[in-house]
């Protein structure tokens, strides 16, 4: 699988993403600088976590208008696979490729911890190596992960099975306590209607081998390889 990672000023999870992609796909990902106007033809583009452009104006707003994003959008329009993790998710909502917005955490605190996620839809290119309703442990590290969409959009996401990951408790229940950042409907990750663009706040690239404390993120990347075969 050929992949690429877009790097913005103040991205800081780009290396984690690059290492994860290289270890799991066996190929070094291309690195796309935010000012690049030509990007390689790849099977997957990843927008990494971090604080692109210092989170100025709104998280992801500046990155969404970076020159490389025009090409990334073209890639997605052609049906190319695109993922955004954490700040990458914020960039995807700011470009309008995914609906809604990510607002300041309800607690106003930066949250850095492992969370339990429920795989709400295992029938996507990004989740087919998980089982439906599987509970996984993935780290989060964000200040602005409070997912908001208006009622109509929320209903659309739910009705179409486009909520892919949800924050849940150890028993798999989407409780208020498990909803670390105040997201509507405990939403942690969503997919577009065409099912080629996924955004999520938690970091699967941070748990891909045992020394990192777990491997629950591995199946996320293996799913994409499965889908391509």
């Amino acid at each position: 699988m050929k992949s690429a990672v877009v790097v913005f000023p103040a991205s800081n999870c780009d290396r984690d993403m690059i290492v994860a992609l290289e270890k799991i796909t066996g190929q070094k990902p291309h690195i796309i600088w935010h000012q690049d106007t030509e990007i390689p033809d790849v099977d997957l583009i990843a927008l990494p976590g971090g604080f692109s452009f210092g989170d100025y104006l709104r998280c992801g707003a500046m990155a969404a208008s970076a020159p490389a994003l025009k090409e990334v959008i073209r890639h997605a329009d052609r049906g190319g696979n695109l993922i955004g993790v954490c700040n990458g998710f914020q960039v995807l909502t700011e470009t309008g490729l995914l609906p809604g917005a990510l607002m300041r955490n309800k607690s106003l605190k930066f949250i850095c911890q492992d969370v339990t996620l429920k795989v709400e839809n295992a029938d996507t290119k990004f989740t087919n190596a998980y089982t439906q309703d599987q509970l996984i442990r993935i780290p989060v590290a964000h200040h602005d992960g409070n997912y908001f969409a208006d009622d109509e959009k929320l209903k659309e996401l739910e009705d179409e099975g486009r909520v892919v990951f949800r924050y849940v408790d150890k028993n798999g229940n989407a409780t208020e306590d498990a909803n670390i950042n105040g997201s509507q409907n405990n939403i942690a990750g969503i997919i577009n209607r065409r099912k080629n663009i996924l955004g999520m706040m938690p970091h699967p690239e941070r748990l891909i081998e045992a020394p990192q404390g777990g491997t629950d993120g591995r199946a996320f990347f293996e799913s994409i390889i499965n889908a391509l075969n």
Partner: protein
Amino acid sequence: MKARVHITLKNGVLDPQGKAIQHALSALDFGGVEDVRQGKYIELDLTETDAQKARASVEEMCKKLLANTVIENYAIDIE
């Protein structure tokens, strides 16, 4: 010309920062503050001299970058 843009959260969008400000005011013994909504204020110096054109241009800026219309409203003053 100068454009002044006020960006505020739409009604119905929770504003945890506004709530925190409200609590802080109450902790400082400022009573009677029923609600606080916070936002952004942006000033732009424009070379455009036609107010109507300036407004149209700033309107586009708001839609494309300055505001996120999923969650925010904007108000433009031109002078």
